[in-house]
């Protein structure tokens, strides 16, 4: 048994030799001329002192997370993508044990109480997972379903829902979008009608990441009849209550390893004390965390974009067309240079917004710009790179085709491009005046 495990580990080492040739490891750009002439290798580490927002601890964090991903996640990605789901409880427990699910959450509930730059470091490193579904699922657990609870929830609620989510014992999901309401959050229809000590919930939610496996949902529902931005509340909803129906797992063109559910609520009864913070402020609470969500998504995708460029370079260097490597044709290496330039610009915007945010500034405009650019660049990049893979790019056997499918979501989810544009225009004061 020990010998078998050992053999597996040695095999891992050798597999990793090929796997990691293609993986980038941090946002480092300082390529010496020796390294740049290599085919692919993990990027050399930037000196901690020179980095805009990262210290030695950030780099140590990324290394530790990277090891965890290499051993516990990446070897299974292909299988999970094929199965259309991943074992959330198992993976979240591993991450929770290592402290990666509560980086910026309060220490009293098992978090680390670190600032958002550490969350960004985690998000960046999660980009080395070889699909988009798993990082997305982790992001929901750590930075979408839990921030409002951490900030505004009662001590009792935090003990019941926040602590186990940080530890990785309970899987969380976020119930905001509905079949008829995505970008227009204020027009959701799910109702939570107060009856004595309880709310009776009816309605449904759509696009619920982790929905088929979640133990609880952070649910946004209408709790009164007032104006649409002031009549909603966030409720901690256990998913095993009678009346909660996970209707179906949605088949999507990408993010296959992440289970996405449509959920219905049939007169579900939940105690009133499960409301996070104040009744009626749910919409506001949800809006507050969007800056973080958006920067998180950008951090995640810049690492992946780096990998795809590197893998494309690797592929086109060895694939010959008309007697020379595809890469040697100027159209190809020039285009990759253009794309890499854009990735660097986006990365700079990410670090700038993060640096300002941790100092207490409102970075809504920059975060929205970064999200907008992230979604669009990912589409452009995946499309251009896929072209250079030729027929192979069209197969399921290569990373670029998975990225092409997975990355398309970024312009839609967590705030569609159009919503981002609206926010930016608001800050530019170019929207039609009333």
């Amino acid at each position: 048994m020990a010998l078998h495990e050992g053999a597996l580990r040695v095999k891992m080492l050798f597999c990793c030799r090929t796997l990691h040739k293609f993986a980038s490891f941090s946002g480092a750009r300082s390529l010496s001329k020796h390294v740049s002439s290599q085919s692919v290798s993990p990027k050399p580490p930037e000196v901690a002192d020179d980095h805009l927002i990262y210290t030695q601890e950030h780099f140590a964090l990324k290394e530790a997370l990277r090891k965890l991903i290499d051993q516990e996640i990446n070897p299974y990605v292909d299988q999970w993508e094929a199965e259309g789901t991943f074992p959330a409880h198992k993976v979240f427990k591993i991450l929770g044990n290592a402290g990666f699910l509560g980086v910026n959450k309060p220490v009293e509930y098992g978090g680390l109480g670190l600032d958002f730059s550490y969350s960004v470091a985690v998000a960046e490193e999660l980009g080395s997972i070889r699909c988009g579904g798993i990082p997305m699922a982790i992001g929901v657990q750590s930075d979408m379903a839990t921030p409002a609870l951490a900030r505004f929830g009662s001590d009792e609620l935090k003990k019941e829902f926040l602590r186990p989510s940080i530890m990785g014992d309970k899987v969380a999901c976020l119930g905001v979008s509905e079949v008829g309401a995505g970008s227009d959050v204020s027009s959701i229809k799910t109702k939570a009608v107060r009856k004595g000590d309880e709310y009776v919930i009816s309605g449904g939610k759509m696009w619920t990441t982790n929905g088929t496996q979640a133990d609880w949902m952070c649910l946004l529902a209408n709790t009164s009849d007032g104006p649409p931005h002031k009549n909603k509340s966030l409720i901690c909803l256990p998913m095993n209550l009678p009346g909660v129906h996970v209707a179906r797992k949605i088949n999507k063109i990408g993010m296959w390893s992440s289970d996405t559910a449509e959920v219905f609520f049939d007169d579900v009864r939940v105690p009133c004390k499960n409301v996070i913070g104040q009744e009626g402020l749910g919409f506001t609470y949800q809006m507050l965390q969007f800056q973080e969500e958006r920067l998180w998504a950008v951090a995640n995708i810049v690492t992946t974009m780096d990998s795809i460029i590197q893998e494309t370079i690797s592929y086109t260097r060895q694939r010959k067309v008309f007697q020379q490597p595809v890469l040697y044709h100027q159209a190809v290496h020039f285009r990759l240079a253009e794309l890499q330039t854009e990735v660097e610009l986006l990365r700079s915007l990410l670090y700038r917004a993060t640096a300002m945010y941790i100092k207490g500034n409102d970075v809504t405009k920059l975060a929205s710009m970064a999200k907008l650019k992230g979604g669009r660049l990912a589409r452009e990049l995946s499309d251009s790179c896929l072209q250079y893979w030729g027929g192979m790019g069209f197969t399921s056997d290569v990373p670029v085709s998975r990225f092409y499918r997975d990355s398309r979501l970024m312009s839609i989810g967590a705030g569609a491009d159009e919503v981002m544009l609206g926010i930016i225009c608001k800050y530019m004061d170019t929207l039609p005046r009333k």
Partner: protein
Amino acid sequence: MSGRVLVGVKRVIDYAVKIRVKPDNTGVVTDGVKHSMNPFCEIAVEEAVKLKEKKLVKEVVAVSCGPQQSQETIRTALAMGADRGIHVEVSGNDYETLGPLQVSKIMAALAKKEDAQIIILGKQAIDDDCNQTGQMTAALLDWPQGTFASEVTLDGDKIKVVREIDGGLETIKINTPAVLTADLRLNTPRYATLPNIMKAKKKKIANVKPADLGVNLTSKLEVLRVEDPPQRQAGMKVETVEDLVGKLKESGKV
């Protein structure tokens, strides 16, 4: 009995990096290349921390010999659970020529200075593959050695070591103080968890110079040349077994 364990950790080029020979053939390219803790040293640290968690030893001290960057390797050991670190500063030409003999002299000196009960090292480093430091350290100290350990059990003032040898597994019992070297299957190193990475910031790393330990770093070895392994030649297909035998005889292999 001090209950103190010394663990040697070496900073090496990361196992996933594609190694490049320097154009002047004097060595390999290390500038700007990703480095990490030698995998066998990780296993050694893990074993030491496990012993401490079982309360069989009292303190785990991580030691690394090298330039400033070796401190990062020590910090990783601290994040895995070592209590404090010792950084033996070796840089420049001394570092280029640093080998197992000098390191084992340093380890022996530190073992005496720190009153160590056990020294645990990785069985070999993945850059030079020497597999000598543990054995030399034990010889210099006149301590027993349990090398290629795949299982370690403390038994009073003795240690039972199961060793991986060519023929299978060998079990020996040695007295303490002793030197152990870790083989692949000894354990699976833990991830440095985030809380421990943060705590490691506060742990102390002492700075020591080899001269302070009375160690002369002059190397008795000189590297003449470093080369790439020969390029793999294309294979040949044959139709029949007779052809195969014929070709083998032709090329002088048979």
